[in-house]
């Protein structure tokens, strides 16, 4: 089967926009600047503007907007904070962009139960600020101050996933508005879900293509007694990766373990003004637990890294020092962009079985060398997931082609190793073809599910699941 979408006539579109304006007044915005701002995330800029941006304030408003759009066959795209990377927000067929920033209430904090319920527009930093007094925290940290709704819709993860899991493991239940305007609640606060299929997991990571996630029940964690960050440098990239593989195989419960290659370190040292570091392959680590537990983890890691030629350990126990370190890690993209002014860049997102990590990173390095472009590697290596940031001159179609070829090769190498083309960024519009390679006929079932739950294909059409 194939999915199709045909943009309704301009008369239908403008009648819909006027109807929205009549109901939502100033919360219906059609200025070019606002529509442009809502048409892209942080990745490559793709042209494709929504016809209108609406700022709903309740589940019921979203339900009635979806009903209207479903009848008129107008696309609907959800917008959180605009930090997605794979073109998820591009309005391929125009339509309505739902900006959820006015739905930003923390609805419940159940400190004793270690859970909370939030509206989709709450950002992860806002949530952590709101629960600070409880001694709890929400660990998923993709770097950007993304909205919880967006993080759910893209199944986000980030630097803490190696210890705390991804959004998938940390969501207990959702409120979702379906394209026909029904408000459904999946999951409960109980650990064991009730009868039926695990719809919660289906909606997590569906990139806005099945419905609009409006509320999320999240797990929370106690702030550890001690948090200690450490940095260790290596002469050899493969050895740094091997140290990570060994640590994971021994089951050391690292909270974060991140790799930056020598090019990325050079860029980050410049951009983030890191003092006393050399541009060599480097591991950034963080340990969480009781005093005794953290001390033991550090001893184990020191011994492992020493076996692989790691040296120059530096520790950061104070909050401000840790913040500086992790800010440098999260600013890797901007450091890369700053490193060679005038270039654009995109990032690969492969994830491979942990034992193939070293081979996969080295193969990616070889592809990078072939491309002749400046690239840097940074990754959540504890999960087998890493990013190659490939820079190119936006005015040179030759460079852009070489960049795309390298990215494509790196994805295929990972799939050949039993891995995936995307560990955390998602499919969006940029990885539709590779998804077919990875899942073969399985894509047909995904398409059937999409068709069944969104018969008129109005939910973020053209994303996540290839139309044919």
């Amino acid at each position, binding site marked *: 089967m194939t999915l199709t979408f045909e943009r309704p006539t301009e008369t239908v579109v403008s009648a819909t926009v006027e109807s929205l304006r009549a109901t939502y007044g100033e919360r219906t915005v059609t200025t070019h600047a606002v529509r442009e701002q809502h048409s892209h995330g942080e990745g490559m800029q793709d042209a494709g503007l929504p016809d209108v941006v609406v700022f709903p304030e309740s589940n019921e408003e979203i339900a009635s907007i979806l009903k209207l759009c479903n009848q008129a066959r107008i696309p609907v795209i959800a917008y959180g904070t605009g930090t997605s990377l794979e073109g998820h927000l591009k309005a391929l067929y125009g339509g309505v962009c739902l900006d959820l920033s006015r739905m930003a209430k923390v609805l419940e904090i*159940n400190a004793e*139960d*270690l859970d909370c319920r939030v509206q989709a527009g709450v950002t992860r930093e806002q949530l952590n600020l709101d629960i600070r007094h409880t001694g709890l925290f929400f660990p998923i940290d993709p770097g950007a101050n993304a909205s919880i709704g967006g993080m759910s819709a*893209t199944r986000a993860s980030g630097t803490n996933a190696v210890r705390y*899991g*991804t959004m*998938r*493991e940390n969501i207990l239940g959702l409120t979702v508005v*379906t394209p026909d305007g029904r408000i*459904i*609640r999946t999951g*409960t*606060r*109980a*650990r*064991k*879900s*009730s*009868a*039926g*299929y*695990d719809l919660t*997991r*289906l909606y997590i990571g569906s990139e806005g293509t099945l419905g609009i996630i409006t509320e999320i029940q999240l797990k929370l964690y*106690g702030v550890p007694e001690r948090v200690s960050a450490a940095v260790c440098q290596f002469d050899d990239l493969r050895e740094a990766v091997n140290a990570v593989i060994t640590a*994971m*195989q021994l089951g050391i419960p690292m909270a974060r373990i991140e790799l930056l290659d020598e090019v990325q370190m050079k860029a980050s040292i410049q951009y983030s003004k890191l003092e006393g570091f050399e541009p060599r392959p480097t591991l950034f680590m963080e340990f969480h*637990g*009781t005093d005794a*537990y953290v001390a*033991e983890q550090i001893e184990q890691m020191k011994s492992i890294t020493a076996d692989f030629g790691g040296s120059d350990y530096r520790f950061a126990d104070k909050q401000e020092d840790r913040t500086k370190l992790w800010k440098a890690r999260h600013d890797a993209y901007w450091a890369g962009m700053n490193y060679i002014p005038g270039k654009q860049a995109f990032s690969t997102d492969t*994830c491979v*079985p*942990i*034992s*193939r990590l070293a081979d996969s990173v080295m193969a990616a390095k070889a592809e990078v060398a072939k491309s002749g472009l400046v690239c840097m590697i940074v990754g959540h290596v504890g*999960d*087998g*997931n890493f990013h190659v940031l490939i820079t190119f001159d936006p005015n040179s179609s030759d460079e852009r082609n070489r960049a795309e070829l390298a990215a494509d090769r790196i994805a295929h190498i990972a799939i050949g190793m*039993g*891995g*995936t083309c*995307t*560990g*955390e960024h998602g*499919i969006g519009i940029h990885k539709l073809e590779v*998804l077919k390679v*990875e*899942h*073969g*006929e*399985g894509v*047909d*079932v*995904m398409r*059937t*599910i999409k*068709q*069944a*739950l969104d018969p008129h294909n109005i939910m973020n059409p053209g994303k996540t699941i290839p139309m044919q």
Partner: protein
Amino acid sequence: MCLTSYEQIMIEHWQSQIKAAAAKGAKLAIRGSGSKAFCGPVANGEIIDTREHVGIVEYEPNELVIVVRCGTRIADVEKAMADAGQMLAFEPPHFGEHATIGGMVASGLSGPRRPYAGALRDFVLGCKVLDGKGDHLSFGGKVMKNVAGFDVSRLLTGSQGTLGVITEVAFKCLPVPKAQQTRVFEFDAQTAIERMNRWYGEANPITATTWVGGKLYVRLAGAAPAVQSAAANLGGEALAIDADWWRNWREQKHEFFAGDQPLIRLACKSTAAWSDLASNAEQQAIDWGGAQRWLRASAAQLPAVRAWAKTQGGHAGIFRGANSEAERSEPLQTALAAVQAKIKASFDPYQVFSSL
């Protein structure tokens, strides 16, 4: 004979069985050893015996991944993993010596470690399935993180044989903790609930908590110094041969589960205050840090138990001894049921497999 051709023959055999059933509107019952038949929907029709598709396809302990065919016994998989110092961390109940991996995934049950290590679905990295059209499809993979397309392998976990024949599953493996011990406390139920929640929130290396027969059992596991320091902090008495105790509990061979009276399972928020739903405390047990409660009660008590569960953010059903589907699980909200039906139809358009 090479394994590939064996696999092909097996899959093709089932494919023709499914296609024939679809063509004539017949039903198929997917069945392993039948160890969990008591807690799933009734399956009628010609049997697809998953025990015919056996074997560990791939297991390199240093990959932390094991790929297994559906008919393989859970016990054989756990043995292979234990030999390499690893485990299925969700501690699945077997409920029978011959219980299979396929049945384990389809029933979606996790054991005592569930609230602390994660549920079965959190360890399913990918799977292969034969859908109701006889297509052999592959979802997910062998990696820890994968956001390529819809999360179909999680949808199949716990689908009770209603969406298709799960033929192969890849699991995430974890190392067996270096040290383990169980502390026992004499507490009333409410104190037990409070302690379970408080101790877990304090980041102790807890991997199981159960209150039964007036005693709270708390299992600690991890690096030796962490376990020792937590044991000293928590207090209580050490339990001898604790592995056997937890195995018995998980397999429902503990005396609490003896007898013919129906067994009600109740899921709720973990801090839900003790309520004397059964006639006396001996007839109730508390599991999963308070989030799962077991009751020995009659079917007549079920409505009252369900009403209470609802006030505590949860639900309840008869786990053993249910006389009907309605006793086994609570009916779904209408809008939710509509979505479920659409998913069922996407996988099984000719209604070859049993209904949920």
